[in-house]
């Protein structure tokens, strides 16, 4: 025994290896199934095979090869460089998507004049608040509150009428430049001033304001539309430019990553020009401009569009967010910051986790009973649909907001209470600001769940053929509902493999873009 090596033997790993393989295959099974289905959908939606081979060849040469090469080069430099480049593609893409949604709202739903009048009406009480804060501090809270409320109500009652009655009104796009461009210029200018100094801040602010106006004019002249021009400038071009500027100034080591988006843009333009010149036909994609912007409903796949669904979904999300977020965050604050450890608190606790598991169709019944049958609302309206979906995501918002609040370190609260802060002051000054990114992430994820819900909308009596809503009480549609209608009312094989595929692509793009924003926010703040 002593000192001699008698071999330890080997323990067979064959079963272990097999087992590991099985586990790995199982892990991929679901993901791959979905991937295959998505490939089918993408094929049906974009019909890439209907394009000329020459078309593919041109884009391979102008777009795919240069992009891969640039990507590989950036990756070789560092992973961060590649990530910088990828973000430079994804960010403008998503920004453009949402800017488009915003433009659609102003074109179809919210008359710009009404918007302007309400902005002015709300600016007045905001000014009053600032003035109150600045001057005499001895105003008691209730007096201040009632003053602010009074001014707000009064202003909302009087001002919109006055503004809308003005003899001359600015053009749509000018209203947007004023109401959106000005604040954005101001805020980003301030932010840049803090980062790079006063001069740069002013330049940036002015550039944003002038740029948005130029965007409007260019849009008008080019026929693209003045409103989309302004929206795209403000919410896609400006953030993109800012991103590029930040990379160039602050991350010189990653500057080269910006080549990637540049190569892609140049490649797309060059490819487009080339195929035009050479006469190669592109694919007969079902996801095209007319699909995205048409409100037509009929049995002919070529003529229908998803526009009403898109606008409906955007509006629903506004209503859902406006109801569910304050209520959900409020409940989370109560449970984390106020609730004594009583039986009642525990009941709320258990109750919330159970609410999160209630089937969505039951929420539909709740909406139907509560709002339609007993609330006297008409069926299938924006308000009823939004409120029903808000109830559905309410527990999800609470749960994620609680997590975010719980992650605020206790030392921060202690510091505040130790200074003689009241509970509300602590919540307002310490807890909510620190929990904000987490709450934002949770909210976006909750909304992206709501985006896909169909059953509750059907239950509250949403119509099968719907238009673009223009008031609270308009009947509403949504993207998933549109898919259901196509899949049932117009169900024919032609629909299944054409517009339905295209609709899936649009819906998933909206959802995934929301999720990626949420993931970005989460990662961005987790690093801190």
């Amino acid at each position, binding site marked *: 025994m002593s000192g001699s090596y008698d071999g330890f033997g080997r323990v067979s790993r064959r079963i272990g290896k097999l087992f590991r393989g099985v586990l790995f295959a199982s892990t991929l099974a679901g993901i791959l199934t979905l991937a295959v289905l998505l490939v089918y959908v993408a094929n049906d939606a974009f019909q890439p095979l209907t394009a000329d081979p020459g078309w593919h060849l041109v884009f391979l040469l102008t777009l795919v090869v240069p992009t891969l090469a640039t990507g590989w080069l950036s990756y070789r430099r560092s992973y961060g460089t590649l990530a910088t480049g990828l973000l430079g593609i994804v960010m403008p893409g998503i920004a453009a998507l949402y800017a488009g949604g915003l433009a659609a709202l102003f074109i179809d739903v919210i008359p710009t004049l009404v918007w302007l009048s309400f902005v002015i009406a709300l600016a007045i009480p905001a000014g009053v608040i600032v003035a109150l804060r600045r001057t005499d*501090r001895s105003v008691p809270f209730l007096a201040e509150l009632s003053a602010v409320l009074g001014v707000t109500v009064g202003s909302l009652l009087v001002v919109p009428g006055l503004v809308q009655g003005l003899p001359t009104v600015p053009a749509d796009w000018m209203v947007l430049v004023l109401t959106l461009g000005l604040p954005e210029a101001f805020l980003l200018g301030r932010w840049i001033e*803090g980062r790079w100094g006063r001069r740069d801040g002013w330049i940036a602010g002015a550039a944003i304001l002038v740029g948005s106006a130029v965007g409007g004019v260019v849009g008008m002249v080019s026929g693209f539309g003045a409103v989309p021009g302004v929206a795209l400038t403000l919410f896609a071009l400006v953030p993109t430019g800012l991103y590029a500027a930040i990379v160039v100034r602050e991350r010189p080591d990653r500057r080269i990553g910006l080549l990637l988006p540049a190569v892609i843009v140049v490649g797309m333009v060059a490819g487009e020009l080339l195929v035009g010149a050479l006469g190669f036909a592109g694919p007969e994609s079902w996801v095209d401009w007319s699909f995205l912007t048409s409100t037509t409903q009929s049995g002919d796949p070529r003529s229908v569009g998803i526009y009403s669904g898109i606008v409906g979904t955007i509006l629903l999300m506004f209503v859902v967010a406006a109801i569910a977020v304050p209520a959900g965050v409020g409940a989370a604050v109560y449970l984390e910051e106020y609730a*004594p*450890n009583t039986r009642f608190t525990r009941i709320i606790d258990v109750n919330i986790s159970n609410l999160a598991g209630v089937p969505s169709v039951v929420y539909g019944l709740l909406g139907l009973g509560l709002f339609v049958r007993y609330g006297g609302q008409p069926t299938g309206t924006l308000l009823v649909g939004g409120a029903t979906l808000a109830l559905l995501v309410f527990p999800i918002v609470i749960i994620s907001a609680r997590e975010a609040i719980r992650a605020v*370190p206790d*030392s*921060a*609260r*202690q*510091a*505040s*209470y*130790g*200074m*003689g*802060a*009241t509970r509300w*002051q602590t919540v307002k*000054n*310490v807890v909510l*600001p*620190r929990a904000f990114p987490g709450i934002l992430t949770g909210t976006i994820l909750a909304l992206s769940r709501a985006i896909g819900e169909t059953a509750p909308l059907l239950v509250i009596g949403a119509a099968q053929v719907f238009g673009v809503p223009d008031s609270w009480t308009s009947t509403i549609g949504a993207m998933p509902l549109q898919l259901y209608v196509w899949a049932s009312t117009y169900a024919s094989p032609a629909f299944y493999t054409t517009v339905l595929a295209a609709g899936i692509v649009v819906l998933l793009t909206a959802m995934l873009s929301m999720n990626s924003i949420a993931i970005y926010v989460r990662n961005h703040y987790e690093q801190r």
Partner: protein
Amino acid sequence: MSNADQSTDVSEGSSGDEYAVSVPEGRGRDRDADGAASTIIESRDLSVWYNDNQALQSVSMEIPEKRVTAMVGPSGCGKSTYLRSINRMNDLIDAARVEGEMLFNGKNVYDDDVDPVALRRRIGMVFQQPNPFPKSIYDNVAYGLRLQDRTENLDEKVEEALRKAALWDEVKDQLDESGLDLSGGQQQRLCIARAIAVDPEVVLMDEPASALDPVATSKIEDLIDEMAEEYTVVIVTHNMQQAARISDKTAVFLTGGELVEFDDTEKVFENPENDRVEDYITGKFG
């Protein structure tokens, strides 16, 4: 290995107080000379429980105004609990329950009509881990003033507090930067500035230097010394030398939440009445 070097003299030791902590000459004296200071905080038979677990046992003690009072004792003996029961921070712990009286300027802070929030505005607090808010340096210091809506002359008050906390010169050009970008020692001084900006009468400090390096610690100690000119300071510490260096009075708690000795610092360290205190001070356990 200074640690090891330092303790080698034990083996050559001859008398009972090799470990005894020497109280610096002149410390305490200059303030004690003008006779006993008036009492600002007084506890009477104060007991605290966490659920069924008693953390303080009938503690009675009088804390003098504008003096530094140190609390020492082994881990878990209830020092922090005592400190936190002065400004009712224990209210925030559901499990905590208090019996007995804690008088502040003669008023029992546990009376029903006392508002703990108002109380805490007059009794500042500094914690073990520096915990500045993730706001600018300026906003950190202004925090308490804004809470109380005392925003006239804010700039001046912020500057004054930072000067008193011996931080002004280091940060005056970066008031807009985040308080989190400072070093640990600076952060702790920022927390002190934050606490004194609202002009409290008492400042409670729970091991304010234990997370800091020696240089930062000595700055904080100097600061505490100066603070006693204007404020009553109550400080919890694990470090005997520190207690000896900076305090006028020392309270020794032992495991179980008992106050076993409370007297002038010099007396406690040089001639303790209680044997267990002597053992503890000379480092024989704890």
